[in-house]
């Protein structure tokens, strides 16, 4: 993951968050991605969201696999530890990281190749464990870093740069997540920071695995006419199913309700997610309804975006395993080692 040191230039008037940090404190090294790459917009949204929720930089763990998308962790929050692992293997490594230290906000960044091909099994099982983490798929329908092969998210009929159509049905991470019990499922568009930032903020508060699939056009290999993952196509076909406000614990609800209904979901940490403009017959807390809606609209070629499904009732991996609230790494060794006397007693059984 190439990275270049970014010229430091702090603007004195920059706003400060609850930790008295400016957004600069949430930035990373300079991106080496292609100019215009969707992934860089996601970086910007992440930077913004983390600054807004004011997570201390060192309490963030950033992990990724391999791919252009997987370079993202280098480009935000330099003050956080980052780990750029092997292709497709981020979910287990993040699971281990979370297992050891649940106090960190664990952010995994992946690509559609990384997550839906080589890492598919791992992602599904991280979902199943409801590992508390934010899992962003920077979805461009191709393998960017290896120069433009179709990924498993390519739609039927979408054309490669060479003009060849993809023939296989896509694996849609949203439908997939619904089918295997994901508890937080969103789709967004890298071009739409206003939508993405509140989703990311909600994800930080979510009790478990937050799956966020972001359509993130690859300007170099998949932004041409005939591609269904181009900026143009996505803009033209986007259908915002919900709009989301994230309301931190003990804040007043200021959000305006859209034409359609609204749904509020209280998060485990006391914050609230407020769905505005929920269409009739849609309920982001009802899996069946969400599936219906998606089946109907996606079938028509629409790109349905928003925080689509949310379930705060499922315990996360740590809760299921009844671990302490603090990081396992904080438990002193004396508590972990039963000591010599216990060993002596135990060995009376081995006779």
């Amino acid at each position, binding site marked *: 993951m190439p990275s270049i040191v970014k010229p430091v230039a702090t603007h004195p008037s920059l706003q400060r968050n609850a930790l008295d940090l400016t957004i600069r404190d949430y930035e990373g090294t300079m991106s080496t991605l292609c100019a215009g790459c969707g992934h860089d917009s996601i970086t910007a949204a992440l930077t913004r969201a983390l600054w807004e929720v004011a997570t201390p930089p060192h309490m963030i763990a950033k992990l990724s696999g391999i791919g252009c998308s997987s370079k993202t962790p280098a480009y935000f929050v330099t003050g956080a*530890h980052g780990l750029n692992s092997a292709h497709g*293997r981020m979910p287990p490594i993040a699971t281990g990281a*979370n297992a050891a*230290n649940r106090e960190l906000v664990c952010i995994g960044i992946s690509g559609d190749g990384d997550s839906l091909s080589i890492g598919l099994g791992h992602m599904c099982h991280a979902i199943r464990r409801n590992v508390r983490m934010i899992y962003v798929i920077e979805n461009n329908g191709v393998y960017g870093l290896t120069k433009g092969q179709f990924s498993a998210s390519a739609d039927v009929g979408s054309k490669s740069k060479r003009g060849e159509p993809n023939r296989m049905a896509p694996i849609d991470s949203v439908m997939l997540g619904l089918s295997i019990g994901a508890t937080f499922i969103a789709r967004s568009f890298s071009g739409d920071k206003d939508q993405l930032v509140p989703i990311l903020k909600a994800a930080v508060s979510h009790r478990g695995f937050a799956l966020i699939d972001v359509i993130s056009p690859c300007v170099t290999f998949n932004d041409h006419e005939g591609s269904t993952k181009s900026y143009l196509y996505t803009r033209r076909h986007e259908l915002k199913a919900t709009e989301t406000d994230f309301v931190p614990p003990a804040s007043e609800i200021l959000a305006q309700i859209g034409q359609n209904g609204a749904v509020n979901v209280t998060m485990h940490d006391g914050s609230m997610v407020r769905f505005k403009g929920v269409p009739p017959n849609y309920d982001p807390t009802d899996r069946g309804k969400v599936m219906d809606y998606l089946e109907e609209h996606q079938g028509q070629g629409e790109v349905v975006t928003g925080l689509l499904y949310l379930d705060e009732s499922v315990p996360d991996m740590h809760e299921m395993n*009844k671990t302490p609230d603090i990081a396992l*790494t904080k438990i002193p060794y004396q508590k972990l080692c039963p000591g010599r006397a216990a060993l002596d007693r135990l060995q009376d059984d081995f*006779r």
Partner: protein
Amino acid sequence: MPGARWCQVMRDRVNDFALKLANVNGTGSASANGLLMQAIFRMGIPVSGKNLFPSNIQGLPTWYEIRVNKNGYTARSLDYDLMVAMNSQTYARDIREVREGGYLLYDSSWPLDPELLRDDVHFLGVPFAQLCNDNFRDSRERILMKNIAYAGTLVAALQVDMEIVSTLLEEKYAGKKKLSESNTRALRLGYDYARDHFDCPLPFHLEKMDANGDKILIDGNTAIALGCVYAGATVAAWYPITPSTSAMDAFKVFCEKYRKDPETGQNNYIIIQAEDELSAIGMVIGAAWNGARAFTSTAGPGISLMNELLGFAYYAEIPAVIIDVERVGPSTGMPTRTQQGDLLECAYASHGDTKHILLFPSNPAECFEFAPVAFDLAERFQTPVFLMSDLDIGMNDWVVPRLQWDDGYQPDRGRVLSLEEIQQLSKFQRYTGEDENQVAARTLPGVHPKASYFTRGSGHNKYGGYTETPSEYQEVMDRLLKKHQAAAKFVPAPIIHRRPDAIFGIVTLGGCDPAVREALDLLAERGVVGDFMRVRGFPFDSAVESFLAEHDINFVIEQNRDAQLRSLLTLETNVSKDKLRSVLVYGGFPLSARHVIDGVLEELGIELKPVFVAAGRPAGEVPMEE
């Protein structure tokens, strides 16, 4: 006794014989066999039990071998004084394995095929099925109780201490009255029948002695799990695979016992059943990156799958402990058979230039002892460490010295910067400032923003920055090589026993230990004198090289086809490979002294007759392979 013919009077032998029990798996024989073994152990007699079981849940042949030896030679014997033939499927081959003049115990509820008789073997028939049918109702119980019934017969025939056996049954079925009664009844059925029909005890039999002191009976997987608990491991990730599964099962049991916070009821550990081994090692790496002591346990196929991430951990310098309980490979191979076939795979796991640290425990006691060593080395050297056990060590019960624990032990967490140290830094640079072992300090997430760095498996320079510059890349790789070499001084030193006038050396590892020692003793008695070295870790300590250099001939005894230990010694010491001769046994059953003696004598071109083995008996005529 129907069909029994006496061909040879056996001399009385006390506490020196071997028996083999042939059963069908899934019929409950394991507990009867274990009972016998445990009773002998409690009688203070050196004993070993080897379970030779199939990769199947129910219905296939399974054997159990018990060797009793007052001198402490408890490696597997290939000369069976007594065969308990409870499996009609394998009867024909079982009878062939009894040594001349030996005994065969069989179920005489049905007549024996006269074809299967042997002149030179004593046949002891007991109508086990009939006895159990007469005494038990339930059909499952009838099957199960046959096992305890033959155990009863053996108690009589071998003079097992009945009091000890009764105590064992009591302990086992404490609070389960009905079960306890049935077992006791079945035991008596076999016992009484033997008393009534045979001259008990047999010429070879048991007598209490005091050779076991405060030793314990434990399998390697249990011991290794206990070692992990004592080492302070908090995160375990695994995918079920024979023969390593019971290690994680044991870890769970111990954690439930020792790691539940008495006040809060919370678990001071987490065990994650991963979706596969790629994931399991990933979880270990993620946890270790955060500073937890984390491990996985697996077998060959799992190691193969972990290759890529092992290279990642090596290169990114993240600790990881991998327990490899080896089985017979390649591929699925024989999952319930033992081998030492993963040495090369583990030593050099992953593409590109990689070298890993390996530890070779030889028995459950060392499994326990080496577990904390593995974590210490993984953290000190910031790299994967393999604990190389195998099915024989891991799943068989071994009599070993009582496990020791020093309450003064403090985990060696290696060079991890504390918050204070970080605060004093002007800038943290991940791979600089290496110590004399070439290890640079690391930092953990969640401590301080100044300590943050980017961990990557892609090319990086000593500052942790991305690089594609040859000199920067090489600099890091060169340090890694030196770091690996530095670990040689920290792995457990080899065990060496020298004898005056030795004309050769023997090098071995792991569970070969007892067979090799026995073989060396027997050879020495006959004037063929060799020195002994058991390596316990890789990279090799300089003592390993010196030992090899001392001898013109070093036999390398190991359980694989391709002489993998010899290969490692060839590549990773300065000793000339001509000095290294292989004795290889890789059929899947534990090593016996006979394998070693035959191999050594053949290579030396020496013929010794009778060569073998226990208490002045003639060499067995049984073919060596079973």
